[in-house]
């Protein structure tokens, strides 16, 4: 019982952290929307798609927050968090290795992070999301088993 309460506490904290992260990310982009557009346009990798990404990225982040907030959609929220964090990590790795130059950095508090710290930071959140996915999948699985009467 104690063990499962710790697990659910960790799950709760991870969910709160992910929600804070994505809310912060989306809001800081939307508040300085023009600046974000400029940064994306000059980013060495995705320049050609900056037009679409400038809206798609903050909107996806808001969508993920909504998914994580609403209980029946929570599992999808974790999957989406996992996916977008991996995308961002891939982006950083590509930037560091295959780009002609490394751009400034992203905005806000993360500005102080170096690129490799950024990767570690991201991977920590990927782990949180993975944990959420596995835990929820498992409890869904148990629920299903209960329903099926196994």
């Amino acid at each position, binding site marked *: 019982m104690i063990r499962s309460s710790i697990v659910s506490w960790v799950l709760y904290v991870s969910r709160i952290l992910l929600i804070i992260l994505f809310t912060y990310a989306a809001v800081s982009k939307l508040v300085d929307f023009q600046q974000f557009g*400029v940064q994306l346009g000059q980013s*060495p990798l995705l320049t050609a798609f900056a037009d679409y990404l400038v809206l798609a990225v903050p909107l996806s982040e808001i969508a993920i927050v909504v998914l994580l907030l609403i209980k029946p959609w929570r599992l999808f929220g974790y999957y989406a968090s996992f996916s977008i964090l991996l995308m961002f990590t891939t982006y950083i790795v590509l930037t560091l290795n295959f780009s002609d130059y490394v751009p400034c950095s992203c905005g806000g508090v993360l500005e102080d992070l170096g690129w490799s710290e950024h990767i570690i930071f991201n991977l920590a959140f990927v782990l949180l999301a993975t944990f959420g*996915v596995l835990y929820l999948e498992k409890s869904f699985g148990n629920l299903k088993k209960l329903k099926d009467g196994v």
Partner: protein
Amino acid sequence: MEFKGPYIRLSVVGCLSVAAVILLFLLSENQIHRNNAFTRRYPHHPTTKLFDIPLGFDSYYLAGYDEPFVYLGNTTAPKHIVRVNLRSKDTTHIRVQMENEELPYKFIQIKVVKPYFFVMDGTVPIILKGSLRNWKADTWMKDEAFFSSALPIDTQTIYVRTISSKTNESVLGVVEKNENFLVDMNPNVLERQVDGVFDVDGIMVSDNANQKLGYVYYYRNEFMIMDRDLKLMKRLHTVDTIHKARLELSEINSHGEIQMNKPPLMVNKWAALSRNLLFIQSDRLGKYEPKEMLEKASIVDVYDWENETYEFSFYLYGILDEKPREFNVYGDLLISLIGSHLAVYRLKPEHFED
């Protein structure tokens, strides 16, 4: 107990996410380098400013470079040359002596091709040549052909632009002197869009060390690279989207002149050719570029003409509210005239070498 499903789902989602970003990256690289999606890329500080030297006047133009000297001509004092030693930062003032001094000169341009210098005025027309040792210029070519612009490419050859007597349109040519003069025109390089004179106006550039010539149109997103016999090697487009010159020309007035009705849309302002790279200064803003930058800096776009790619762009900052007027690239140095200053930059090899 079976608990494989979530792991498989996670792996699939993970792989798809990574693949999506890689795909976007590859597509984006392709578009930026090959197509004219007018979006510039700014790496961080591809150039380092070494120093600037005050010249006192803003009427200087670049006449040539012979390490460690930069030669500057002066449009308001046409026979006056300033030699700047980039190592000691000393400046020497030189007065050029010319044969045929009484001729009606209107627009003298002096260019240095070591160990000689050329004094050229296409309105006379005349070209004089002299040695850098004594700065005495003797007539080299006179009344052979009028020209609107000229650029010496070696001690015997001058790259010119003139008006064809057949078509009355601008044409590029090479004037060579061996035993006789050889004036060789190539009417196929410049392509008429409006009148064949105004619309094809542009910047003549040369890389004398590698014997390559270039021409960059002012009013459209196009440039050409030629070999020293003016054989067209490449005809390429810049990142800009203006492919047709936007000019409005008046009817011929009572003086027989044609004028521009509106200030034309200038796509390319200045250019320099060095090895496989063509540097083009443009005041046109691409996507996501802050407008305020144009008040204090000029944008220089770098193209690799051999590989037919746009490489990247950088800002050339002004000095005291003055923006760069002209520049040229010699080896790893970029030398620019900004207001009444001469500014010297080093091109970082990691950005400028192939």
